[in-house]
Structure formats: structure tokens, C-alpha cells
């Protein structure tokens, strides 16, 4: 009980810092995911349309995912230096797999009958993609976005090791100072942020699914 009051008063005292860290954390995640969407969705569509290059694209993003997050950030640090940008690039690579894979599966899953119907209406290949395949693949894409966001919030916590800010700062300094209060002041908001992203995007995923069915 005493510990909770202590933690709360610490958090109240350092409100500004913690809010700044939370803000940095969210910004890092949004930039990383934004880049991953900009690159991942076209890659997913390419993989779905051209079966020959699909295994290449999918296995490449798969291998990226196996690289330990700390190692990925460390290697990027060698080439891009310390700081925010490097962390964003790391998050980008990490969010790529769920987004590419789910876009690919979503576009692939569209029933061949609907494709035939689209063609029958005189649509060109691009029109079928834009008006039939992409709208129907949105629930899959949303599921990928949800997984990607949870991963990105998690990996962003390691960013302090390569000199970026975010809630990880509080956790990392808590670990090195053996300060339970600092650990919790960083870990609880970080965990809540991840759970929050998971819940909100899960809710949106179900809504897009409902709209289609």
C-alpha cells in the first residue's frame, strides 16, 4: 500500500517528464508504423498479384522479424548513429511483417467469384484491385496493424539503449539504479499503452469486419 502511494507521488512529481516520454514513445511508434504501412501495403499487394515474387518478399520480412530487437537496433545504430531516427527505422522494420503478411493474405482471400464478377462488369485489373480486393481485405489489414502496433510499442521501449527517448528511459534507468519506483513508473504506462493499442485496434478490426458481412 505504502509502495503505491510512493509510486503515485513519484509519478505526480515527474508528471511532465513522464508525459514527454509517453509523447515521444507514441510519436516514435506512429512514425515507424506509418513508414511500414507506406512500404508494406504495396509489398503485400505486389506479393499477392505476382505469385513468383511472393515467397521472396514474405521470407525476407519473416527473417527480419527473427532478428532480435536489441540486435536490430544495435546494427542500425552502427549505420545511422544514435537517436530518434534510428529507433524509428528499427520500428519500421519490425512492423513490416504483420502488415505485409496480412495485406497479402487479405488480397488473396477475396473469393474468386467476386473477382470474376468484377471482370464481368468490365473492370480492368487495377479497378478490381481498388474496388473489390482492397476494400475486402481491410479487416485483415487491421488485424496486421494491431499486431504491428503492439510490437512497435514493445520495441520502442528498448530505444533508450540507442539514445532515443520514450518510456523505456524510465525503465532502463530504473533497472540500472535498482529503483523499483522508476521501473514501475515506466513499465506501467508502457504496458497500458500496448494494451490500449491492442484493445482500440481490436475494436476497429471487429467493426470493419462487421461492415463487410
Amino acid at each position, binding site marked *: 500500500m505504502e509502495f503505491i502511494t510512493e509510486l503515485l507521488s513519484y509519478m505526480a512529481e515527474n508528471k511532465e517528464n513522464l508525459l514527454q516520454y509517453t509523447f515521444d514513445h507514441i510519436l516514435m511508434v506512429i512514425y515507424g508504423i506509418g513508414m511500414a504501412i507506406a512500404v508494406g501495403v504495396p509489398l503485400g499487394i505486389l506479393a499477392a498479384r505476382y505469385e513468383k515474387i511472393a515467397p521472396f518478399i514474405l521470407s525476407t520480412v519473416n527473417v527480419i522479424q527473427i532478428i*532480435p*530487437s536489441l540486435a536490430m537496433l544495435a546494427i542500425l545504430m552502427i549505420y545511422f548513429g544514435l537517436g530518434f531516427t534510428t529507433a524509428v527505422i528499427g520500428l519500421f522494420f519490425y512492423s513490416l511483417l504483420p502488415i505485409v503478411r496480412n495485406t497479402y493474405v487479405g488480397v488473396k482471400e477475396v473469393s474468386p467469384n467476386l473477382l470474376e464478377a468484377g471482370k464481368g462488369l468490365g473492370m480492368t485489373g487495377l479497378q478490381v484491385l481498388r474496388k473489390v480486393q482492397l476494400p475486402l481485405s481491410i479487416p485483415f489489414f487491421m488485424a496486421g496493424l494491431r499486431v504491428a502496433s503492439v510490437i512497435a510499442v514493445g520495441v520502442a521501449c528498448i530505444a533508450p539503449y540507442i539514445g532515443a527517448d520514450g518510456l523505456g528511459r524510465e525503465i532502463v534507468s530504473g533497472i540500472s539504479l535498482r529503483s523499483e519506483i522508476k521501473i514501475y513508473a515506466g*513499465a506501467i504506462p508502457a*504496458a497500458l499503452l500496448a494494451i490500449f493499442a*491492442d484493445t482500440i485496434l481490436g475494436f476497429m478490426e471487429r467493426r470493419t469486419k462487421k461492415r463487410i458481412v
Partner: protein
Amino acid sequence: METILDYIEYLQERYVSILEYSYEHLLISFLAIMFGILLTVPAAILLTRVKNDLFNSTVFNIVNVFQTIPTIALLAIMIPFFGIGLQPAVIALFLYSLLPLLRNTYAGIKSVDPGIIESAKGMGFGQAKQLFTIEIPLALPYIMSGIKTTTVYIISWTTLAAVIGAGGLGDLILGGIGLNDKFMIFTGTFIAIILALSMDLIFGKVEKKLTR
């Protein structure tokens, strides 16, 4: 060319400690996954016997929360309870392994054709015999593929265990970041990836053997 020679020299000098890091790494991952399997396989089988859907979804939601919490946050939260070192790392990674293992085993048992179970009952199989001779063997491909993916990811996440003093290849990477030493970073990374991929390969082979 010179970098390669330098690197070979580095490996020759340091291979004992590199092997030690790899051993620690495998040990942490192995312990976490073993405890994960020991808990989740029986738990998932029990869950398939529970008729109450609300209870099942609550259990899955709870394990899902563990999966959602950022790795380093979960590792750090362990420190006040278990101190630093091997034990808190294994516990945190064990919590991470629960969801994929539980989900796959559950899905595997659930996927067994009810007709087969009916005919087993008709032949007079008891609960235990039905479970061990029919359900588990038929669910094995699912269970194995759950173990395979979990192992690959846990090996990758074990790198972070170094942050709370558990050792493993993360130590090499963290040291490399601190000293700005490319060789240390790359060695740690490559060994971690190779370990993960070879586990993937080995389990894939075992999976094929078992399902044939």
C-alpha cells in the same frame, strides 16, 4: 579484406566466451519453453473439457495480456519480485510463451473430428485412453507447430534477458553498443539468428516425422 582478417582474429581470441554466451542463451530459452510446455499442454487439455465459454475466453484474455506487455517492461517488473539474473528472465519469458503454446494446443485438440471421438467412445474407450491414443496424437501437428514458432521467438527475445543481468547473447550486443564494437554486435546477432533458424529447422523435421 582486412576487416575479415580482424574478425577472424577476434573470433579466435574470444571464442570461449562467445560459446559461453550461446550456452547461457540456449539455457534460458530452453528453461522458459520447457516450463511453458509443462504448464500449457495439460492446461489446454483441461480447457477443452470446460464447457463454460466465458471461463475459457477469460483465461485466453489473461495470457494475451502477458503477450501484449512490452518485453523489457515485463522483464523489469520481475526485478522487485525475483531480483536480477537467470530466474526473473526465465519467468518473464515463460509468461511470454504461454499464449502461443496454449492457443495451438487448444486449437489442436478442438480440431479432432467429433466423429472419431464418437467412434472411440462407441468402442468403449475410457476418457484417458481416448485422450492419449486419439486426441493427443491427432493434435500433435498443431502442438508441434506451436512449440516451433514459440521457440523461434523466445530465442529472439532472450537477447533482452541480458538487460536484467541474466547473460546470454544479449550481453555481447549490449557490450557492443556500449563500446561501439561492430564485431561484438554482429557476432551476437548472427549467433542468435542461427540458433533461432536451426531450431526452426530441427522442429520442422521432427514435426514432419511425427505427422507422417
